[in-house]
Each structure stands twice: as C-alpha cells, then as structure tokens.
C-alpha cells in the first residue's frame, strides 16, 4: 500500500483555485459563440436555431447552442466571435431566492441522468477528480435523494426517465434546488421535444439554475452549483449580456 501513498504524494497539487481565482488553463472549456454584428453572417447557418438576427445583430440563445462550430467554420457565413470562459450558469427568473445559509456548510448533490449522451455525465464525473475536487468546497455527490440538497439533472427528460426523475425530486427534503446542466436539459437540445422526450428537465421538475453547454465543462457545472447556493452571481442566458465574467483564453 505504501507504494500508493507515495505515488499519491508525488502527483503534487493540481487543484484549480476556482472559485477563489479564475482558472486560466487552456482546454478547461470549449467556449461559446457570442452575439455580434450580422454583417457577412447569417443566422440560418445554425442547425438548432440558436441564432436569430435582428436590427443588424446576430444573437445567441444559449439554451439551444450545441457546440457544433458551424457558425465559426462554415464557408457560407463569416465566423461569429467565440469567447472562452465557463461562468455560464444562470438562475431561472421565476424561482425564489434562497435564504442565506439555507444549506449549512456542506452540500449533497444527487445526479440524475434523464437521457444524456454521456458527455454531460462524463464532465460531472470530472468534478471529483483532483483537478476540480469539489469536496474542498463542501460539495459531495450522494447516491440517494433522502439527504440530497441539490438535484443535478442532465438529458432532455426522456419519457422513460420521467417517473424516476420525479420520484427522486419528491424524495428530497426541503429546501432543495434543481440544477439542469447541458442544453438537452435546458431545452431538449437536438433530442427534444419529440415523440419520446420532453423539452428538458423543467418539464418534470422545477429548475432553479440552468447551465448551458454541449456538454458544459466541469467548471461551468461547478459555477451552476455555486449559483444554486448563492455563492456566485448568475450569468445571463440570452443576449445581449451573456455570458457573464468572460475569462480570456490562456495564450
């Protein structure tokens, strides 16, 4: 066993300083397209109707953008500006704010997969790796709803997961928060609404915080958790001011 202790020590500290400081390591986020002038650009290039043009501007709806990169790599339209950063999570306007200190010092997160493609879940799994280590912030992934404070939902809410999702939410004690991560969970993405899927988690449970991205990188999901417990301010999911607090890409 000592071999493992030693090798554990040797790997050294790699953990991000976020949220105390911004993380600037390259590759932590794929970034997002941003609203800009419509000149030479066409909103039709977007296959998911995430882009709309009005008054000489092209606006991005982050509930629909699936990171297909067509608006930056297509010959038919001048590339949209692309912004790094990851503080993308936004509080749903119609949900009440929390009382401060509602959850105490530690927070249990129940993850429910309501039909994701596997990428969103993979990014959630990274949150406990030493690079992000959410335990240091008092966040823990729990396997049961009974002691969960936050329900973290991914996927468009497929029909066959509706019952399980609802049941998990109903079994959670108050106060509770729901964070929907990934465009599928926000709008159905490219999968919903359809004959067998809903238009996101809000079809089944009340969503407090929305995290866009396809998939949202670990730091965006972490930002979502922080917004859910009011430890970070919310971003905005539609133009003109989205996303908040952009971070410059590392050189």
């Amino acid at each position, binding site marked *: 066993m000592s071999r*493992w202790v030693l090798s554990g020590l040797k790997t050294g500290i790699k953990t991000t300083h976020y949220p105390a400081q911004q993380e600037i*390591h390259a590759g932590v986020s794929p970034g997002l397209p941003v609203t800009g002038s419509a000149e030479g650009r066409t909103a039709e290039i977007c296959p998911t109707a995430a882009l709309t043009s009005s008054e000489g501007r092209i606006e991005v709806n982050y509930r629909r953008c699936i990171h297909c990169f067509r608006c930056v790599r297509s010959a038919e339209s001048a590339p949209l500006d692309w912004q790094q950063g990851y503080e993308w999570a936004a509080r749903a306007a119609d949900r009440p704010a929390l009382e401060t200190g509602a959850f105490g010092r530690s927070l249990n997160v129940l993850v429910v997969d309501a039909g994701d493609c596997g990428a969103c879940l993979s990014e959630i799994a990274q949150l406990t790796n030493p690079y992000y280590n959410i335990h240091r912030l008092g966040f823990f992934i729990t396997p049961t709803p009974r002691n969960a404070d936050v329900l973290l939902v991914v996927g468009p809410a497929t029909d066959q997961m509706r019952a399980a999702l609802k049941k998990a939410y109903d079994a959670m004690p108050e106060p509770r928060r729901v964070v929907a991560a990934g465009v599928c969970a926000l709008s159905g993405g490219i999968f919903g609404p359809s004959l*067998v899927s809903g238009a996101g988690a809000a079809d089944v449970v009340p969503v407090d915080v929305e995290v866009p991205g396809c998939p949202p990188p670990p730091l965006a999901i972490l930002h979502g958790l922080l917004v859910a417990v009011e430890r970070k301010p919310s971003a905005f999911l539609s133009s003109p001011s989205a996303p908040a607090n952009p971070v410059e890409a590392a050189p």
Partner: protein
Amino acid sequence: MLADVLREAEMRWPGNLYNRVDARSGEIECAPEAVSEICGWLFSEREYIFACLIAEERSPDWELRYVWYGAGDDGVIHVVARQPVAEQTFASLIGRVHAVDWSEREAEDLFGLVFQGHPRLGDFVLHDDRWNREVTPMRKQVDANAPLVRLLPEREWRPLLVLNAPGGFAMPIGPVYSGVTESALFLLETQGEDVIRCVPRLFYKYRALEKLAEGRTAAYALLLAERCNGTSAFAHSLAFCQAAEKIGGVNVPSRARALRILLAELERFRHHTAAIREICESTGLAVGASEAAILEEELLRLSCQYTGHRYLFGLNTIGGLTRDFEIGPCLQTLEMAQSILRRLERLEQRLRRTNTFVDRIEEVGSVSPQDAREFGLVGPIARASGVARDLRKMQPYSGYENFSFNVPQEQAGDGYARLRVLFAEARQAVGLIEQAVSALPLGPIRAETAHLAPGAALGWVEAPRGAAFHWLRLADDLTVERYHLATPSFLNWNGFHLATENFSFQDFPIILATFGLSMAENDR
C-alpha cells in the same frame, strides 16, 4: 473469399439473387423463408460475424436486412428479404444465431414486426409500464414530433422472476442507483448470498434518434450521430460520414483521412483511460482511480486545446473535416499524448503489483471465447476473451490498412484480461497517433465537391467500445429516409448475462466497470 461464398450459396439455394456490389461487399436477395438458413450457414459454417439487422418500411414492402462481415476478402454480406407491409411476421434467426436476439426484439418493439420462433418477452425498448404494445414509433405514419400516446395512469411494472427456486427473489437496482451513473435498471436474482444471474432492463434513455433523423438533411443527422454517445462522438460521426460519402461517391482527401485516424485514436486513448479509472473506482482503489482521473482530465484538456472541443464534437463533416491542424499543434499533441501514456504505463505497473487490486478483478465476470463468438461480442470485451475482431484490421477504412499495429488479445476473458486489453490498446492508440503525425499528407482537408445522391450505404468504424455500423438511406430529395445505427454497447449488452452468472454481490460494480458499456450508446 466473398466470390466463393456467394457462388457456394447460389449452388445451395438457387433461385435467389446473388450480387457482388463491389470487391468487398455482396448482397443476397432471397425469400423471407430462406433468410434463416442462409444466415445460419454464413454464421456457423463460413464464420461470418453478425453486424446488424436493419428493418425498413419501404412501401409497399418491408425490407429486412441482416448484415454479416468477415476479414479481408470475405467482405460484408447483406442478406435481404422483402414482403408486403401488411404481412408483419418474419421467421426469427434466434434458433441459429444468438447474436441476433436483441436486434430482433428491437425491430419487434419499434416496428411492430413479429419474429416467429423468438421468445416474445416484451418490455424491451418500449417499457410496458409506459406504453401500450401497439405503439410502434418507427412506423412511417408516426409523427416524430407528437408525443406517443402514453398509458395513463402508468401500469405498475413488476420484474419477471425467471429464477424458480425456494427463497429466490429479484433485487432491482436502478434506474438511479449510485454516484454518477447512466440510468439503467438491473435485476439481481438471488437466493441468499450469491447472485444467480442479472437481467438488465435498459432503454430508459431511449431518445428515438433514428426517428429524429428521418426527413432531415444528412448534415443535420450528423449532429445526432455525433451525440448518440458523447464519449465516442468522433467514432460515430466518422461512421456516419463514411456512409454518406459512400452514397455520394465522395473522395475524402488523404490528409483528412489521416487526421481522422489521429483524432479517432486520441478519442480511443481518452476513452480507455476513463474506462481504467472506472475499473479502479469500482474496486475502491482511490489513489489509482484519482491518478487515472488526472490523466483523463489532461486528455480532455489536450483534446480541447488541439481541436476546440473536449469531446471532439464538430470535427467530422461529410467529405472530410471542418478544420485543419497545423503541424505544430499536431506535434505538441503527440508529445503530450506520449507523456500521458508513460504515466499511464507507470500506473499499469503499480496496478499489476497490487495484489489486493488484482484479486478483485481476476476471475470475475468471465466470458469464454465460445460464448463471445456465439453471442456476437465485439471490441475490447471480445478481444479479452480470445476473439480478435477489430474492424480496423478486418475491413479497414480511412486508410488504416497503411498503418502498422496489432490487435491486442487476451485469453482469460475475465475482468483482469479486459483491463489488460484496455492498457494495450491505449498504448497502440498512441502509436497510431505517432504514425499519423509523422506521415501527414499535405493537401485539402475536405473534398471539393461533396454532393450527395439518393441511395443507401453502410458505414462502419471500430469505436472505442467495438464495432459500430451506421446505415443511411437518402430519399430522392436527399433527406434521410432511414437511419439505423448498431452500436458496440448494444451488441455487447446482449451478452452481458454471460458475465453475470453466479457471482457474489460485491463483485457487481466490478463486472459492470470492466464491461464499460454505455447506456446512451445502447438506448439511442
């Protein structure tokens, strides 16, 4: 040889149509009654491997297509039968080929077909507590946008207890069952201490991807192909593009072909690292798991730095790639991949010397070579059971025939053998990246003209979890008429029960992890 096989088949079953489509593929058109015999012969005497069953409603007929493949010159053979749409009963192949089991059940659920001779179990893709059995989402008259008529109130679902012994009961686990896991339910049938068998109930994540593609453009369907499984997005988008390129007769430039291999292997490397992390986690080896997790995150960051996306989304396009890569970043990526591999190899060494770890995965979840063949297993799982099948070798695509690599193989078929195959393939993936980078052809990264045409074709790749087949049919207006994807997770879940006979309860997470299958890729 394909030609010999077709000739011999023609002698045995005269009166059917035997077409050589090209050097490596053929089609046998026969009466529905003849399918079972011909396929049974291909499987048991000519040792062809089952790829997929494609059901198509092509008014006025049903078209049923069983696809088989072998190595090299044996090529790919489609056995096709048609009958009027009003006639919904086909003979099942299940008596001759176990590997078709799930494929027939799927076609039964989604199209309302009946496979005579197949034990009709129901509650498969469409769960019985949600929908009436009459619901058939893949039929053409069903609207992809209108919700299917649900059962209200929901019927209560009770597991079918197969075990018939005193004191026996089935313990359901799922569909939400632990930490960060994909949704699925497992029925563990037990009689006390040990679990006698495990019956997975999947398709909680059924998104009807194939249905959603219909009537859309191929460029749109590509987005669905890519997102059928986010952790092997590049492989699936590549298979889809290859199908579309075949239909249109598009020549993909050599630079794009080599870069596709580079990216596919980068994905395989990351996938296998993640799978290794999961195996460590399942045994409770926290330090090993977090070391693998560090490497996994570094590979995700590397992928993002190199391509713009951590899971390689948005790179494949019909005709090539959406972006080029300068040589500098290619070399850096190679260097980083090599240094990550060295650390992964050190982890491998330490794991091998950790008896408490090896004891947990050795002789756990074993699958015999014969079973693996019978049930049509693919990918690292098959290769760990002594069945060396790999489409990159057997039916090379994108230029794999010009690369030198071997197919790692193990004989034991247990959890440890599967882990060793993952390590060996990770090593080999980096070797392939190196070969791709060192001989990158110059030139365009996308075919100048990528015109599509009406027609149908099958594209395939060796995805990280094994063989994947994408069937695409474009209508006259070039929209998608039928899209079917057969995935390695689907093929392998069909054989999961082989690894779950008489095991002790605490080994269950380990068996699951060493199988490393995806629900998204299975459920689609």
